[in-house]
């Protein structure tokens, strides 16, 4: 990307029927999905039937009754895909999984107030707001009014997915004075949700589509970076 993000992460979300209690570091190690060393060093926050949450050196895993989430701030991001694919393709094949989300999140510095304002004004001009526009303009720096959040959605994605969308959100970032936060959610979904009996269809989409999804998300983010 043109501007090196200050914060950057990728996450994978699988929606289905999960048993949170299974997903302990020891279980992953026992099945050769992570090493014993990694399992022993895991930082466990919660293990409960409603929520399991722990961190490894390079990723964190969170499991709820309807979602499995793995995210990482550390490249190579392909690792989270490999771990998710292995988990649900080799061991939890019978877990019904209906949806997949591949998320790319960055927070980058626009460099100046003016640059950040320019993007806000291009994406959400104040002028259509009529008489309120003048009030929006009031304030300086962070106190000034304007675009708070914007989401764009592409509903037809020509990559063979049964259903889904790509959504990109942009907001001012909390991490720096001139920061911009962007989040791209690439959502894949099976057409027939009621007849799903296992994880394979969705995990196969993940296995074949992860890198292309990330590449596309970064391309979308780059379109905004190019405005600076």
């Amino acid at each position, binding site marked *: 990307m043109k501007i090196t993000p200050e914060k950057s992460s990728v996450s994978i979300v699988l929606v289905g029927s999960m048993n949170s209690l299974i997903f302990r570091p020891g279980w992953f190690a026992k099945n050769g999905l992570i090493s014993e060393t990694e399992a022993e060093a895991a930082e466990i926050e919660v293990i409960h039937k409603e929520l399991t949450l722990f961190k490894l050196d390079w990723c964190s895993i969170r499991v709820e009754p309807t979602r499995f989430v793995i995210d990482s701030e550390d490249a190579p991001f*392909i690792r989270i*895909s490999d771990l998710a*694919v292995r988990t649900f393709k080799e061991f939890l094949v019978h877990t019904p999984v209906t949806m997949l989300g591949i998320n790319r999140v960055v927070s980058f510095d626009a460099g100046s107030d003016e640059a950040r304002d320019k993007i806000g004004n291009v994406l959400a001009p104040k002028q259509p707001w009529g008489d309120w526009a003048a009030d929006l303009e009031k304030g300086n720096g962070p106190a000034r009014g304007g675009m708070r959040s914007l989401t764009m959605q592409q509903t037809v994605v020509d990559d063979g997915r049964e259903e889904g969308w790509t959504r990109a959100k942009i907001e001012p970032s909390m991490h720096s004075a001139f920061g911009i936060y962007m989040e791209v959610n690439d959502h894949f979904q099976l057409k027939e949700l009621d007849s799903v009996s296992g994880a394979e269809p969705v995990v*196969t989409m993940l*296995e074949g589509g992860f890198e292309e999804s990330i590449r596309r998300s970064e391309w979308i983010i780059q379109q905004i970076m190019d405005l600076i």
Partner: protein
Amino acid sequence: MALTAPLDTELEVTLLGPGLGECQLIHLGAGNWVVVDSCIDSHTSQPAAIAYLERIGVDPRKAVKLVVATHWHDDHIRGLSEVLECCSDARFCCSVALCESEFVAAVLKYEGQKNVAGGPGVREIRNIYKILEERSSVFPPIKALADRVVYQVPEEMSGHGRVCRVWTLSPSDEQLEKFYVELTNLMPSVKETKRRAVPQDPNHVSIATLVEVGEHSILLGGDLEETGNPLTGWSMIVSSQARPQVKSSVFKIPHHGSENAHCDDVWATMLEDNPLAILTPYNRGVKKRPSQDDVARISYFTENGYSTAQIKVAKTKKKRERDVEKMINDVVGKIRAVSVGTGMIRLRRNMSDLESNWDVELFDGACDLSKACL
């Protein structure tokens, strides 16, 4: 380079090599061409055979009559499916080992990996199978076996009045047995972590090809190695009575000149004195070929040795930021380019002139064998 096609009466052998991979084109006469193996032309990124034929004004779709894959290693097969697709009038020939469903299954297992490619060789073979499925009822492909004629041009159609025959001299039954053992080692098993397909040496099923044109012949060695076993490798070919008992004036040296493909008896009994000996170097990895010893050994048998390129450690041409280059240097020293540029050796001989000999032309970095090594 003279951008002209050979005359109908001219025999041509052209060897292309980018330092990784090789391709041979043989003009039998009257616009009949044979392509053996494939590599990518470093200048155009096209399959080298297509790039060359188009450059000299030959339409590959009509001119190429036979495409031969000597074996499935990456450096002999890149772009081959595109060649076969383009050459719509050509039959396809490969080792019988590659026709068996066990090998097909191995290819599919590696090629089916969704998030990591099985390897260029695997991908090419998969694409070749797809083309053959569509074409085989019209142009059935041919299994290469020891001592088999796979293509023939009758004298009235050869342009120079001589019969042309393309023979495959290998693999033997014994070689096939060894290949199937190797295939077992290569075959993935349940619960094994996926990986890339990496073919192992020695090469048991490479095809060696003999092209007979009247009283002349050309021996193309593929990557066939010599094992010392009379039932396999070059010893098997030398001792065969079923092949043409001729001596060739041109020898495409097998396996990039390495010692494990050398057989004294080939030079003594299958080649004329001082034949034209041509090879492509292997510029990858730690063991580059030909070595100085290889060059010395070959030079003992012929003064007419040529290489399509010099062996050289070529730094990658990809430009990266300075700090990235520095970090690369800290970790691995240099990143090497796998390909150093396609060189070409072209041999032509006018069959209507009984006094003529082979004309040797060297292009784009091809050189005398004595200059091949650093």
